[in-house]
């Protein structure tokens, strides 16, 4: 009997504890107001604003420094920082657009800008930029990319940083093999071949075959053919016969000079493999610089912009541009804009990009001394701003771009690598989908 009383007391305690836990947990929530239909308000320019960082975690520390500087300058504005894992940022925005709870300011990269803007969630920023201290101080090329990526005539994102396709190569392996830096495509193919010794598990190159494979493949294709425009009238140039030939040559590298496991490479596996193995070259972007530095140490590798054609012309596809957007539903747009303006100022934009290893959008920041010391960033900035580089603008403005370049065609790229699909069929399928998406987009604009 005593036992049963003890048991029942325990059960009652457990129920009580559970209730307390749940009640405590529910005590301090909010209503998540602010969905896409909400027109928001200019507000007083004071109070609390929320900022969603779409690349939370790795960038948390530097954003918290920027926020601390901002709150020091504007003590009557408080910024609540929310770090969102990069891979889930778009889902979080989409859910908040439908259900409510959008922030005042958010990091929205060009890769998802059109999809967010088309839902009516973003505030046009052209007038605010024109009237602000940022006018004339932002990189024109990046502003043009931001504007185009929004899918309309308005600017929905103020660019903070430019990334760039980078060919990382192991200087120690190149020196041992007596090879020149892979500055041209012919040198690239030559080095990939000569650095490969499959018996010793040494490879010349690692190819991206899994998630995110389409943009690097297009970078290699346009880079080799020198075609400088993604569109010819209403049709894409992606399946131009020269591009087909270039793609055939590029995918022929798979298993010949690359590990067989590359067919499943997303950037994580690809970078980890390059950092810990004996692989000559890796095509990624500036973002993995710190990973290489930690893994390989200074002096064992270099990052250069994509190889050029024999005449020195460099053609590359546009990389997504990071930036900040103001949400239409914000109840305090004045304070939110102050934060964007502050984050894009010379000092803060420089500090942020030095930490991120990217090219600053603020032209004053782009001239700072740290860029001269960070060779990959310096070379990327020179390539982006130099007259010798032609940028093929990928159609980030198409709301379907992410679906087409990921879910629809990444499995096809794997088939291509495995020899189950031809380069022509792959590019024809891609071209059909792009032409249809472009036609739909044109109908609505």
């Amino acid at each position: 009997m005593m036992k049963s009383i003890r048991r029942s007391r325990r059960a009652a305690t457990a129920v009580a504890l559970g209730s307390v836990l749940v009640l405590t947990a529910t005590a301090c929530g909010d209503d998540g107001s602010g969905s896409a239909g909400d027109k928001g308000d200019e507000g007083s320019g004071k109070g609390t604003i929320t900022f969603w960082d779409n690349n939370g975690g790795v960038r948390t520390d530097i954003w918290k420094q920027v926020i601390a500087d901002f709150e020091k300058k504007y003590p009557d504005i408080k910024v609540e920082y929310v770090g969102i894992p990069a891979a889930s940022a778009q889902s979080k925005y989409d859910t908040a657009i439908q259900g409510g709870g959008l922030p005042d300011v958010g990091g929205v990269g060009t890769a998802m800008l059109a999809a967010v803007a088309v839902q009516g969630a973003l505030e046009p920023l052209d007038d605010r930029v024109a009237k602000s201290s940022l006018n004339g101080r932002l990189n024109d090329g990046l502003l043009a990319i931001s504007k185009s990526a929004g899918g309309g005539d308005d600017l929905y994102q103020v660019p903070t940083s430019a990334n760039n396709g980078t060919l990382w190569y192991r200087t120690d392996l190149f020196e041992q093999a007596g090879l020149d830096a892979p500055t041209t495509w012919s040198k690239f193919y030559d080095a990939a071949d000569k650095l490969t010794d499959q018996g010793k598990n040494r490879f010349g190159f690692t190819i991206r075959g899994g998630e995110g494979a389409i943009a690097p493949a297009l970078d290699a294709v346009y880079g080799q053919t020198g075609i400088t425009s993604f569109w010819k009238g209403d049709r894409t140039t992606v399946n131009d016969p020269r591009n087909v030939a270039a793609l055939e040559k590029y995918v022929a590298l798979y298993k010949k000079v690359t590990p067989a496991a590359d067919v499943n490479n997303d950037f994580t596996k690809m970078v980890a493999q390059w950092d810990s193995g004996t692989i000559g070259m890796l095509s990624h972007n500036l973002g993995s610089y710190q990973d290489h530095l930690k893994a390989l140490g200074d002096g064992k590798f270099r990052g250069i912009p994509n190889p050029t054609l024999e005449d020195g012309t460099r053609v590359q596809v546009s990389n997504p541009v990071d930036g900040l957007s103001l949400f239409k539903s914000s109840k305090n747009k004045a304070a939110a804009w102050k934060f964007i303006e502050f984050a894009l100022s010379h000092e803060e934009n420089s500090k942020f990009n030095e930490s991120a290893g990217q090219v600053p959008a603020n032209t004053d920041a782009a001239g700072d001394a740290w860029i001269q010391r960070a060779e990959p960033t310096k070379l990327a900035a020179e390539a982006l701003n130099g007259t010798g580089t032609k940028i093929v603008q990928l159609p980030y403005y198409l709301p379907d771009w992410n679906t087409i370049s990921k879910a629809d065609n990444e499995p096809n790229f794997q088939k291509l690598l495995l020899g189950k699909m031809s380069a022509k069929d792959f590019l024809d399928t891609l071209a059909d989908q792009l032409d249809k998406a472009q036609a739909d987009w044109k109908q609505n604009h």
Partner: protein
Amino acid sequence: MITEIAPAPERVAAEPARPHHRRRAWDEVPRWQIYLPLSVYLLFTLIPFYWILLFALRPAGSTSLVPWPMTFDHFQKVWTERSFGTYFANSVYVGIATLLLTTVVALAGGYALARFDFRLKRGFMLALLCSQFVPGALLLVPLFQIFAELKMINSLGSVIIAETVFQLPLSMILISGFIRNVPYSLEEAAWVDGCGRLTAFRIVVLPLLRPGLIAVGSFAFVHAWNHFLFALMFLSDQGKQTIPVGLNTLMSADSVDLGALAAGGIVAAVPVVVVFAFIQKWLITGFSAGAVKG
């Protein structure tokens, strides 16, 4: 008339010999034929875990295949700089609250399903089963709106309630199976002795449900511990995030700190491994018992 009689004594005599033959056949199998496949399977299973340990314990930049020299820097980094201490506490909170809520509600619902006949009972059971086919992502927006109405966005309660709701159908079905296995006559005997239904349930039935409760509770805890989506969507405050969201923030768009990611993965896995190590005996008993008359 000739009647053939089967040689029954021979058959009887032959039967006891069967296990002996089997044992002899078993004994004759060379040990390597048993242990080699098992070892290969074990290696196949454990090598990924070894790689996680290796990355977590060796210094950044090391390519050594053994974690030596050993460093705990990655653990220190995720625990302090990346707030895994806070995420861990939040996950424990969500896990325990989900476990308690799920178990209590599933007990009540399971008892009703096992002991009472009511209209549309079969339909209700079918609806419970069908609810398992709906992915959580489909319900995100309506759930978000409901929690927003209740002013529960950005509170751990929203995650606890959502996790509990998703755990309940399976838990109720399992618990009702366990309760059906307890003879009704035991409860009736307690009523004859003067107990009410609730007291009889508490004193007679509840103690017999221990394996089932452990199975359902641990399942609810582990699911809530590992679940990423609800915590990501309903919580914004960094101080309220849980371990799975924290793990995802270790991978940025272009860069990943593998040492920190591996250390974070171990921090996330240890509680689950410990829970399973302690409860595996009851877990297997519980699931098999609940499945008999489910």
